[in-house]
């Protein structure tokens, strides 16, 4: 019996069924339950008194949620574009065959190895006007130097972009570098023969041929944007005021400290829809290509 069972365990169908069952229960099951909760009035404990889409309407009335969503779009766009540009430039420099390539590669990739909490705390200290860069420059004699974005409600979101780009540019660099290394040598010969300037070669010939590489970068960075939580908690904790709130933080706060299970569930479901929406163009192009 035991041996029969053991044999069964290794049959592919059995393994796959077990795998899908786990996914179905824990992944889609959780999504389903979250959706169910978002239709109730549950506060601290799950309660099954359904009120339809009332909580979604509440969410649309909630200024903090609206600010969170706008922040995600602003932050996401700047962060993705910034990381792609900086990462690509770094990759080009390294690809030019500089000396100590390994050293630079490690330096640029290193921020990625640091936890987001440490990154956030470090940048928070650097950007604090009384401790960090501003204080340092003023001590050196430039009394009027000001760099206090982190204390200004309409600029604090950009400090998050700076910290995130610093962290993720290395990742983009390494992926783009791998892409550059696989460019056919003949292509470079042709470019040299045509006497095309370097920058035009990259912008108009090399990079357009690396579309899939950039697509993977964008998908990776997008997931960072949507689940952005730790960096914000460590760096601004959503402040000043609510100026750097993000949807993921909204959901966590309302689940665990505001004891508002239903509103947090509604926020989570909207986040899921939002991420599907953002990924839709990518998924569409991927599936179309396969046909």
């Amino acid at each position, binding site marked *: 019996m035991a041996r029969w069972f053991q044999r069964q365990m290794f049959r592919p169908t059995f393994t796959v069924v077990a795998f899908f069952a786990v996914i179905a229960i824990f992944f889609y099951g959780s999504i389903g339950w979250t959706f169910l909760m978002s239709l109730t009035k549950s506060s*601290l*404990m799950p309660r099954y008194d359904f009120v339809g889409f009332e909580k979604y309407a509440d969410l649309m009335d909630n*200024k903090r949620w609206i600010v969170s969503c706008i922040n995600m779009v602003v932050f996401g766009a700047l962060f993705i574009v910034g990381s792609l540009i900086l990462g690509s430039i770094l990759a080009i420099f390294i690809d030019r065959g500089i000396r100590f390539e390994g050293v630079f590669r490690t330096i640029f990739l290193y921020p990625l190895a640091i936890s987001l909490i440490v990154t956030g705390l470090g940048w928070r200290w650097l950007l604090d006007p009384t401790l960090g860069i501003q204080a340092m420059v003023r001590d050196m004699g430039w009394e009027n130097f000001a760099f206090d974005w982190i204390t200004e409600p309409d600029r604090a979101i950009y400090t998050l972009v700076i910290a995130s780009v610093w962290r993720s540019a290395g990742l983009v660099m390494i992926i783009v570098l791998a892409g550059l290394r696989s460019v056919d040598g003949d292509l470079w010969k042709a470019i040299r023969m045509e006497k095309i300037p370097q920058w035009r070669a990259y912008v108009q010939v090399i990079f357009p041929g690396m579309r899939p590489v950039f697509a993977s970068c964008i998908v990776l960075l997008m997931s960072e944007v949507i689940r952005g939580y730790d960096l914000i908690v460590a760096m601004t*904790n959503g402040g000043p*005021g*609510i100026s750097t709130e993000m949807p993921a933080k909204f959901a966590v706060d309302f689940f665990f400290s505001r*004891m508002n299970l239903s509103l947090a569930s509604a926020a989570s479901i909207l986040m899921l829809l939002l991420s599907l929406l953002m990924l839709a163009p990518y998924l569409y192009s991927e599936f179309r290509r396969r046909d």
Partner: protein
Amino acid sequence: MTAKTMLLSCVFAATATHSFAQVADVQQYWTSASESKAMNVIADAFKAKGGTWIDSPSADYDSTIAAATSRIVGGEPPSAVLMTPNGAMLDLAEGGILRSLNDLRDAEGWQASLAPLIYERVTVDDEMVALPLGVHADNWIWYNTAIFDEVGIEEPTTIDELFAAADAIQGAGYTAFAVGGEPWQELYILTDMILSLGGPAYWNEIMVERDDAALQDPLLVTAFEYFRKVSDYVDAGSTGRSWNQTTNMVITQEAAMQFMGDWAKGEFLAAGQTPGKEFGCFLMPSDKPAYAAVTDVFVFPEIDDDEQIAGQDLLARTVMDPEIEVQVAAVKGSVPARTDVDLSGLDICATRGAQALATPGVAVASTYDALPGDLNGQLIDMATQFWTDPDMTAEEGAAALRDVLAD
């Protein structure tokens, strides 16, 4: 069998039922230096009475509630949970999850010995569902006595004197108000202003009854104007600063005053300072003084296990022991919830607090304790929006407050 032997056997039977272990599994978050000392006072007394103490600490309030609710839902409830008598407690009580302590209350006469406000907070639909460990208030102002002496000012007794003092302090080159950057700290400043202007009766109208007419009162606009005025006295490093770092500014004579609950006292004590000497305290000045209470309580989830039920009984009696109440208050910086205890061992600030709590009509529930659901959270969001957005007028602030509170 004579009546005497019958009686004896009854006594034996009664003691026999008490012979099993009394176990308390306590889900709690008192982990800082002064807090854990206070929890140890309770735990040691509980063990001395023969109980077995199982400590289940969490990092903070939120994770304690999260852990407790998942344990309750999973069928393994802790014997006691440390929390505050807020919306979450109401939720648990309405879900029928909390044990009613009416039997113990009646046997021990607890209703008469507790301050009326506190008794009201721990009672839901005539069922006593929680026991107070101690009471804090969030409308204190803490000040550095050296700065007050240097500038030559006394403790202010009206809101105008408070701002006059702030001007004098700023003139002497100090930061007048140390304010941190956490949104809940900003809400406390706003509620201090509302309490000072309106007094306890008005407070109850807007926070407890949430009366529409009271929420229209132009007094709220004035409160928002004062709230905005406080921001003129704040230093540049305020953003994101935690409350205890902010208290440290008063300790180190960098700033003169801080609006903060009396948990701040622990920071002064830890720095080796004495109340009334290096630092002082007064409740938010007003002609209608108020004491905005934040209570720490134990709730006791319904449980099947006999040993744990016996443990709950023993723990409940331990917590309500007048001596334990005083000892907890002394190490934690709080005020005992019982009004019939000996206050001679308490410092000047705790004595002031205890007097305010015992004066009829002065003690009110703070927003944290008074508001159901996530209304307190919504108020925090509203206060911090107003605080960080200088373009928002006091009228708009008052309207936003009304939107949150009027249902």
